[in-house]
């Protein structure tokens, strides 16, 4: 049951590199996820405002709006959606890392992305909805 819910999850991938985006989509769809893609933070926010999104995967280095600026806006729009930040560089500022739920170096993407998505989405499924007072 949980496995089915995990694989029905909708992922939003944002990266300014079309090749990386295409690979992320092919990779994640192969493992049963529904994938939305955007080439910029602005387009990602537009998609997130009209589609339900379970987990967000965003590159840090992007023109116009970087991953940190995107994460601030995304947390306001959909605070319950975990954000995984990616970067080819390892010197991502602490302020950016504090905003997101996980960080993956792009070199370790194929080995770390699937378990990280599953873990974060499972945490969301297990937690009470926002505004719920137990």
């Amino acid at each position, binding site marked *: 049951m949980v496995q089915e819910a995990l694989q029905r999850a909708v992922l939003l991938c944002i990266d300014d590199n079309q*090749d*990386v985006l295409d*690979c*992320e989509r*092919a*990779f994640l769809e*192969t*493992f049963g996820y529904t994938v939305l893609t955007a080439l910029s933070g602005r387009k990602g926010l537009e998609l997130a405002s009209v589609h339900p999104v379970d987990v967000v995967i965003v590159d840090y280095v992007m023109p116009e709006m970087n991953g940190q600026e995107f994460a601030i806006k995304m947390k306001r729009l959909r605070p319950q959606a975990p954000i995984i930040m*990616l970067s*080819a560089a390892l010197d991502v500022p602490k302020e950016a890392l504090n905003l997101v739920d996980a960080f993956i170096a*792009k*070199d370790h*993407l*194929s*080995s770390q992305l699937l378990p990280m998505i599953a873990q974060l989405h499972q945490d969301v499924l297990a937690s009470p909805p926002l505004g719920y007072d137990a």
Partner: protein
Amino acid sequence: MTSLEKPTAHKVLLVDGDNAVREMMTATLEHKGFEVVAAANVSEALRFIYYTEFRRAHH
């Protein structure tokens, strides 16, 4: 699943300089049943081809 979706006998030589792209493509193709040899550049790819052809010629 049809045989087109599970082409276990096919080997793919994948050449891409971007680690993230190469690793995700490798994982995707392997999951679909392909055998993948990944090379980070043309020289690596050519070395693999020469080595494979050399072995074929001498067996």
